[in-house]
């Protein structure tokens, strides 16, 4: 197996880009990543493009080829990858597999999405599902995760709100973040209720944006970051499933730590899927940053702050950086790369050497459809 390195990363600011197309956003992020890696479009062996909603919202398919066309990349294999919120990270996983196996030398991996809706309009996905027809909304399942976690472990509304407070604070330090305004625990708790017990500021926004990375076989530069593990799992969909954790995430985390030969305690910085505040708490537990049930206390202790023992979502996470579903998985990698290179400026985690990115996607019978965990190392 070839060792795989990230040679460059780039992204657009996340937020609202009503006048820009998917290919326009994708081109900007991809150009930035290739410039960062000093890679000519001519030297790209394959393109992997993650996008979740383009067909449903913009009527666009073949987005990878369209972005390649913009960049002058043609004739090479192009993979369009869709795995809900894990679309971008699944594209990365596929590229990692292909380079590991020797199918190609250099890959351009893009995540791109336009999911911001006009004011007052709700994002409409999954309308064919019977649960949606009965009134299911996306935050509903995570509201029930919060309900179960609170009942079983005593996790509090304040602890969950502290996730939002921390991540909005971190977002103020990130020039790519959609939100650059701090919030207080009181503001989070007093914001409009969406699905009990999740309020508006417990939920991430739906956003527009793109992120890209260049992946290569072997080290080419001292700034390169090694991909020490790349794992993709899917759900089990068992009817007796316990809502306080995701089995697919535990399996992904265990496999990633095994492949990277690192322990959870060695992770210096992590980007996790905080679509809802309770999610960051659950992910901290599944990734082994604390014991099951202790995620709320871990957050309240300040251990997940930029200057804490394990910095979680220094970028601001989905909560503050924003969430273009297909792009978030690559934006997480962009952040970890910046952190491991020591280029994260005001939000830099001190002496970050090993980083982790985790994201989940899709919903099937109350379970997640996909989960990826990536471990990145600076050597």
């Amino acid at each position, binding site marked *: 197996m070839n060792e795989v390195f990230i040679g460059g990363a780039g992204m657009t600011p996340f937020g609202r880009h009503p006048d820009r197309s998917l290919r326009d956003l994708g081109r900007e992020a991809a150009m930035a990543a290739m410039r960062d890696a000093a890679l000519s479009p001519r030297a790209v062996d394959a393109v992997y493009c993650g996008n979740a909603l383009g067909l449903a919202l913009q009527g666009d398919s073949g987005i990878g080829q369209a972005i390649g066309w913009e960049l002058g990349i043609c004739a090479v294999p192009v993979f369009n990858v869709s795995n809900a919120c894990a679309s971008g990270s699944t594209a990365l996983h596929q590229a990692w597999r292909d380079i590991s196996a020797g199918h190609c030398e250099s890959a351009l991996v893009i995540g791109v999405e336009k999911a911001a809706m006009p004011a007052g309009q709700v994002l*409409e996905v999954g309308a064919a599902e*019977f649960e949606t027809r009965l009134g*299911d*909304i996306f935050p*509903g399942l995570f*509201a029930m995760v919060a*309900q179960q976690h609170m009942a079983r472990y005593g996790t509090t509304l304040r602890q969950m709100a502290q996730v939002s407070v921390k991540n909005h604070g971190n977002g103020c330090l990130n020039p790519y973040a959609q939100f650059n305004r701090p919030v207080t625990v009181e503001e989070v708790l007093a914001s409009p209720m969406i699905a*009990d017990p999740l309020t508006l500021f417990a939920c991430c926004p739906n956003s527009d944006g793109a992120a890209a990375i260049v992946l290569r076989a072997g080290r080419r530069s001292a700034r390169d970051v090694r991909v020490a593990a790349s794992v993709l799992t899917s759900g089990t969909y068992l009817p007796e499933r316990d809502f306080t954790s995701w089995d697919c995430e535990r399996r992904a985390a265990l496999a990633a730590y095994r492949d990277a030969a690192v322990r959870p305690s060695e992770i210096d910085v992590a980007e996790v899927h905080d679509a809802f505040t309770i999610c960051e708490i659950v992910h901290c537990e599944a990734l082994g940053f604390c014991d099951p049930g202790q995620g709320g206390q871990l957050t309240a202790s300040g251990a997940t702050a930029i200057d804490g023992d394990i910095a979680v979502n220094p970028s601001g996470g989905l909560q503050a950086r924003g969430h273009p579903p297909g792009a978030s998985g690559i934006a997480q990698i962009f952040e970890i790369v910046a952190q491991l290179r020591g280029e994260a400026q005001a939000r830099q985690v001190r002496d970050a050497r090993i980083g982790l990115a985790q994201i989940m996607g899709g919903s099937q019978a109350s379970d997640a459809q996909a989960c990826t965990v990536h471990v990145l190392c600076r050597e």
Partner: protein
Amino acid sequence: MSAKRGESARSEARVDSDPPALEALRGPTGERLIDPARGVLLGSFCGACTRTWFPQRRICPRCYSGERVGERALGRNGVIYASTIVRVPSSLGHKPPYAYGYVDLPRDGVRVFSRFSGSAPEAFEPGAAVEFVLEPVASNAPAATLAWAFRLETLA
């Protein structure tokens, strides 16, 4: 022959005076989720491994049997596993507030997504005993569909 014609005329007369029957909500591959005539949820029973599933499956995901999987009426009584109250309009225009969640049906070993009705939304706590009822669900598209809800057993 004449008796049959008479029946047909009666049923036409009833259609004229009554509101048209609502179309029943269907599952991911067009399968029936409810039997309106019997007033029950429909799942699948695998004769090979005796496991029950909801919604219906063509192939048993536990033992992979295809031939011995058939439709089965599920029990009407369940216990709430988890619940929430939606406070904003859904993308399909369901009017808030409304409560929903997951109901475990102990007899069948299945967990069912369901709306809750018949009481204030706050009444549906995990652990509460609930009973199945047929109920229309109203949203923007389509206008109304026959579906189901669970309500507190004490009211049923």
